[in-house]
């Protein structure tokens, strides 16, 4: 209902205001307050007519209940609770997003609801058409009526879908939260370990000094070497431990994660190599290739090497051409391509398959 009116205010009328807006972008046209002078001022719009009004004016005019829009020649009845902050600078976009949201709430099917991609695309296109019509004021009444009719007819479906979606979103939120927690935990452990390491280093330093002052001065080098070795050993063991802890955390996280299975499936599907025809090619060729001379010496002296190979004087002669050779042209490719094509579609009996 609302957007029927929106559309009827449609482009010509609105564009006047857009131009007006450009001139006094930062000034409320009602109370003439300027943003320059009162930087805290906020503009609000109402999706009935999309006229910009500053917050204090909205409070002042609409606090007592619905009132007409204060813009000259507009006069639409507006309610305070419908006012919202403008997100997009261009009001046309703002309006389209609103329409999109509204239609999207009704036409909320996803790809899973369709048997094949073609159907889904058809559906998407019909939705786009509705949005376009509403946005540009084409057959608004009819489209609007259809929309309402569709909503009434598919009420339960829409609700169900919404429920499912919100569940999914909740799962996702949970997942993200858990992930964040995991991250924090990891950071915490790492920090703790770093602190420990620092302390240990200090201690070692102290020990070293003690040793150097008290011990025999003969082989200070040896002592320092040993110390360094110890340090390295410890560092690697610490690293291992950190790794272990992280793994443990990851595992725990995955156990409790509701989306884990889904993610795993997805990962698996990435692991299987991509095949454009959804299956591996049948590698049995229908022919066995005769030996074909392929290295340069053989090719240069091809007459003596084709006894067992394919006989085609013309092509075999081409194989000797150095320019062709340099460019990567090979006899084998020529023969293979022809032979492949000879058996592609040989077994398709069109008469039967198209009947």
């Amino acid at each position: 209902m609302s957007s029927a009116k929106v559309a009827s205010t449609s482009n010509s009328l609105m564009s006047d205001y857009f131009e007006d807006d450009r001139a006094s972008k930062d000034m409320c046209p009602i109370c003439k307050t300027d943003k320059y002078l009162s930087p805290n001022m906020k503009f609000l719009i109402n999706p009935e007519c999309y006229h910009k009004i500053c917050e204090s004016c909205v409070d002042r005019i609409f606090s007592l209940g619905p009132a007409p829009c204060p813009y000259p020649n507009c006069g639409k009845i507006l309610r305070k609770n419908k006012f919202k902050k403008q997100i997009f600078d261009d009001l046309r976009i703002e309006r389209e997003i609103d329409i999109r949201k509204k239609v999207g709430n009704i036409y909320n099917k996803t790809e899973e609801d369709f048997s094949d991609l073609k159907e889904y695309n058809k559906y998407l296109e019909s939705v786009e058409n509705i949005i376009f019509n509403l946005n540009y004021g084409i057959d608004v009444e009819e489209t609007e009526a259809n929309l309402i009719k569709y909503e009434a007819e598919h009420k339960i479906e829409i609700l169900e879908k919404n429920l499912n979606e919100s569940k999914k979103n909740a799962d996702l939120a949970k997942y993200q939260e858990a992930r964040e927690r995991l991250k924090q935990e990891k950071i915490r452990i790492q920090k703790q370990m770093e602190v420990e390491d620092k302390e240990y280093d200090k201690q070692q330093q102290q020990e070293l000094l003690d040793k150097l002052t008290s011990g025999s001065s003969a082989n200070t080098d040896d002592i320092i070497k040993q110390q360094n070795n110890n340090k390295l050993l410890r560092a690697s063991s610490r690293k291992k431990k950190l790794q272990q802890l992280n793994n443990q955390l990851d595992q725990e996280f995955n156990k409790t994660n509701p989306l884990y299975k889904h993610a795993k499936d997805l990962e698996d599907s990435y692991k299987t190599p991509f095949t454009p025809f959804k299956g591996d090619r049948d590698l049995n060729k229908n022919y066995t290739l005769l030996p074909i001379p392929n290295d340069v010496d053989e090719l240069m002296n091809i007459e003596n090497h084709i006894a067992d190979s394919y006989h085609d004087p013309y092509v075999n002669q081409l194989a000797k051409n150095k320019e062709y050779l340099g460019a990567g042209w090979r006899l084998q490719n020529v023969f293979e391509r022809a032979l492949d094509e000879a058996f592609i579609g040989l077994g398709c009996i069109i008469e039967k398959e198209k009947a």
Partner: protein
Amino acid sequence: MKESTTDTKSSSEGSEENPEAKRKRISNDDLYRRSTQFEIWSYTAESLEAAKKKANAAGQIIATKRFNEAFAELKKASPEVFENNKDKLNPESLLNLITFEEESKYLNYYTPNIIQIAKFFKMPTQVKLTAVSFFKKFYLENSVMQYHPKNIMYTCVFLAAKSENYFVSIESFVKALKGTDAKDILDLEFIILSSLKFTLLVHHPFRPLYGFFLDFQAVLLHPSPLMYDVSVNTLGTLYDKAKNWLNENAVLSDVAFLFTPPQIALAAMYDVDKRVTDRYLKRKFLRDHADKLDDIKEEPENGDVKKEEAKVKIEGDKNIDNDAADSTATKTHGETSDIQTQREQYETLVRTIRKCIKVAKQVSKSPQDEVKEIDRKCFFALNPRKLIEKQVKKIAKEAAPSEVV
């Protein structure tokens, strides 16, 4: 026989006993089934006929509409002439549309011209074939009563040259064709493209033919010649003859809509030399069993079943474990069914090839005078105004002398 089971198994596609076949493999034939040539441009004989008839019917409707508009316009301009000569100036007697048969003849007349044009520009065979293919496809979607074939023909050649990477600039192309403007051709380009549904890749039988020429060598000559009178040279002449056969028969006929390129190529070979080609096919598709089955024309499976039973009996007599006997029985059965499917494949292939030859040879040349008559009709179908004006003039002429007298 038992030993050979493993060999035949790996080569037979999708037999159920084969565990490897459980995962579906994409065969070469499946690849062809995904091509637009198969998906959009392959027909059965009936559906091809239906498509042509549909195009003709649609053309007739459009031509009639055009005629009626022109008739009403002219009648408005000079109502008294039309009133006075109702018997000679009425839509029923004037309107003379091209029938389905006439349209086919007309198009058959034009197709060889495409090859002539392509030859004139010294275009490769590939371009010629693609141009013919475009032309034929265009008139499956449209009628000569919508677009006159002359310019369509030129545009098809121009377009085919571009799509087959043999570019001819529009200026030099038009220069060679008298009485045709660049605009005529460029305007039609998009119309043709959309009628083709933007499918520009055409698979022709010539490369498969070359492939078979190579495979004939591999199968019939290596490791040692199979037939005493077949050598590299005889195969070469067979190949050349087959190429000519394709040029003469296949290109102008509708086989490209009805059969796949390899089938057409084999048809050419088969029609040129049946003996050699049949030997090749048997050797290729019946594999090792070819020699055994060659003589058994009827009920090949009967003999095998008997053998199988006999085997089981013997083994049973020898007191071998029953299970083992069973397993051998199923094995031999699997093999016979393999042979059977091979046999079936071979037979359907030969049947298809024969059909292809028959269709390819059906094309008849359209007689010149008949085509001229159709051409006149086509002109008037496209320009009904001229037809009516001509009739009006004729009436005026007839009326004039009587007035003088």
